């Protein structure tokens, strides 16, 4: 679905009106994402996550290297609109991406711009809103919705373009816990049920444990790539780039370092509870006696 080879991106910094310099934000990034995968991108501020995301629907073009979306080179101007309709984007602040005066109008913005027949638009809007559980709000003003609902409208807007892939850049940063769950559930469902490829950029490590693959970025490089189990197997790498790990993962590591025979990595609460109960009731303890 997405193939990136030796991607380099440099921003121009204007130091004064005439003097400029270049700053490398993505440095030799190579990455392959298969259709239907759910990929999480982790990394500190300034590590290049959002710049990478902007290459996926041609908001930016590579300075060096190549990005192929569904086999099409992003530098190929004739493929531009095809690529953009295949990659939907959702950003952090829901208020900044709402354009319509009603929910359905907002969601229809994308397909309307593509000049689709009215019936198709209506169908897509209804389907998209159904997918995010907001069909009953179709006539409401988007500004009267809660933060989580607004963010789901934004996802529906991306969906209405019928993309194969959705890129979400910190979609839950401004949401309360209940709304965060709503949004993460919708994202998971789109991935599992509709088979849409998901690229989720986030700082919340508890949102990435369900991903197929995690990419850890630092200073423009991919420094680690693997399944959640592989990545959380050695939390020292995450700690080295000052990323958080889920509290249960951290607790399991601390207990292990104090001699508790717990199997790491532990990624979820249930896993931790099961592991603890095994130790509490089980044989491994008796070996120590």
């Amino acid at each position, binding site marked *: 679905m997405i193939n990136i080879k030796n991607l380099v991106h440099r921003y121009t910094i204007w130091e004064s009106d005439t003097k400029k310099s270049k700053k490398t934000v993505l440095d030799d990034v190579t990455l392959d994402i298969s259709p239907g995968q759910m990929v999480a991108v982790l990394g500190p*501020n300034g590590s290049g996550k959002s710049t990478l995301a902007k290459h996926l629907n041609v908001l930016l073009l590579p300075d060096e290297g190549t990005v192929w979306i569904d086999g099409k080179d992003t530098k190929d101007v004739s493929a531009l609109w095809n690529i953009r309709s295949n990659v939907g984007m959702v950003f952090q602040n829901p208020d900044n991406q709402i354009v319509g005066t009603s929910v359905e109008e907002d969601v229809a913005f994308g397909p309307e711009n593509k000049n689709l027949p009215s019936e198709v638009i209506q169908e897509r809007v209804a389907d998209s809103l159904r997918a995010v559980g907001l069909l009953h709000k179709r006539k409401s003003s988007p500004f009267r919705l809660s933060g989580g609902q607004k963010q789901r409208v934004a996802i529906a807007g991306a969906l209405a373009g019928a993309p194969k892939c959705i890129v979400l850049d910190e979609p839950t*940063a401004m949401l309360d816990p209940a709304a965060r769950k709503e949004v993460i559930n919708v994202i998971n469902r789109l991935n599992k049920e509709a088979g849409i490829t998901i690229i989720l950029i986030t700082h919340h490590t508890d949102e990435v444990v369900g991903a197929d693959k995690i990419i850890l970025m630092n200073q423009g490089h991919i420094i680690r790539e693997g399944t959640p189990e592989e990545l959380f197997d050695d939390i020292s790498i995450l700690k080295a780039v000052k990323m958080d790990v889920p509290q249960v993962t951290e*607790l399991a590591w601390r207990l292990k370092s104090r001699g508790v025979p717990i199997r790491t990595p532990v990624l979820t609460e249930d896993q931790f509870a099961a592991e603890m109960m095994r130790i509490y009731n089980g044989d491994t303890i008796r070996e120590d006696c």
Partner: protein
Amino acid sequence: MMKVEHLKFTYAKKTVDECRVLNDISFSVQEGEFIGLIGSSGSGKTTLIKHLNGLLKADSGTVYFQGQNIYDKKYILSKLRKEVGLVFQYPEQQLFGKTVLADVCFGPLNLGMTKEEAEKSAKECLELVGIGEAYYYTSPFDLSGGQKRCVAIAGILAMQPKILVMDEPAAGLDPETKYMVFELVEKIRKTRNIAIVLVSHHMEDVARYANKVLVLHKGELVLSGTTEEVFTKTDFLRQIGMDVPQITSVTEKLIQAGVPMTAPATSVKEAEDMIMKVLRERGGMK
């Protein structure tokens, strides 16, 4: 230091959009306290903090600051706004000065400090937030996101507030920058003995830093107490759409499964000690 009594507030009174936002809220803020204010979106958190420095006036109820009723006709609200510093969400969006120093001086100058006093205060606060002299004359817009936020916070601190109210100060920051901001707030609280009111959706952060927690739900103060008292009421918090720290939730599961721990933990360290104790008592661990 501050006492809020029976506060009530309604938006858009006498219109079709009338909306009661705060209903009979009472609490107090003492010197040196770190208060966490939690509640789902729309519960009234932001409306409540706007009352703390008189940006909104309650329909009924009173706010006392250092014993004085702020709704008193003779009370000078600008004095209160100096004493109660409000840091809104994304405070860096409010930066506008030509230089970092000028931006931080803006507040104190408006409060009537002389140029010298304002600059002295600004420089102290910039040092406190870790912005060195080298940045004084750069444009605030050339800084990184985390630095911008620190400058914005310094702009409030330069007014020398006694209470610092912060609305989601860590939203959109990576964990490192987030901890930097929180550690900074802790440092200021300790060195200046000021009170902090932190509004946040992130229970882990609130549990880590606050020593008192207030829970708002649909405009009412439904729960308040020490951090342990509040977060161990896990069922209630979930019922009102709030979350508890993951560590609290998982230790609660262990207790339900029969592990003899007294109460759910609110920090990783606490959970670690509890589990080690249980395992030792079980006789399995050395």
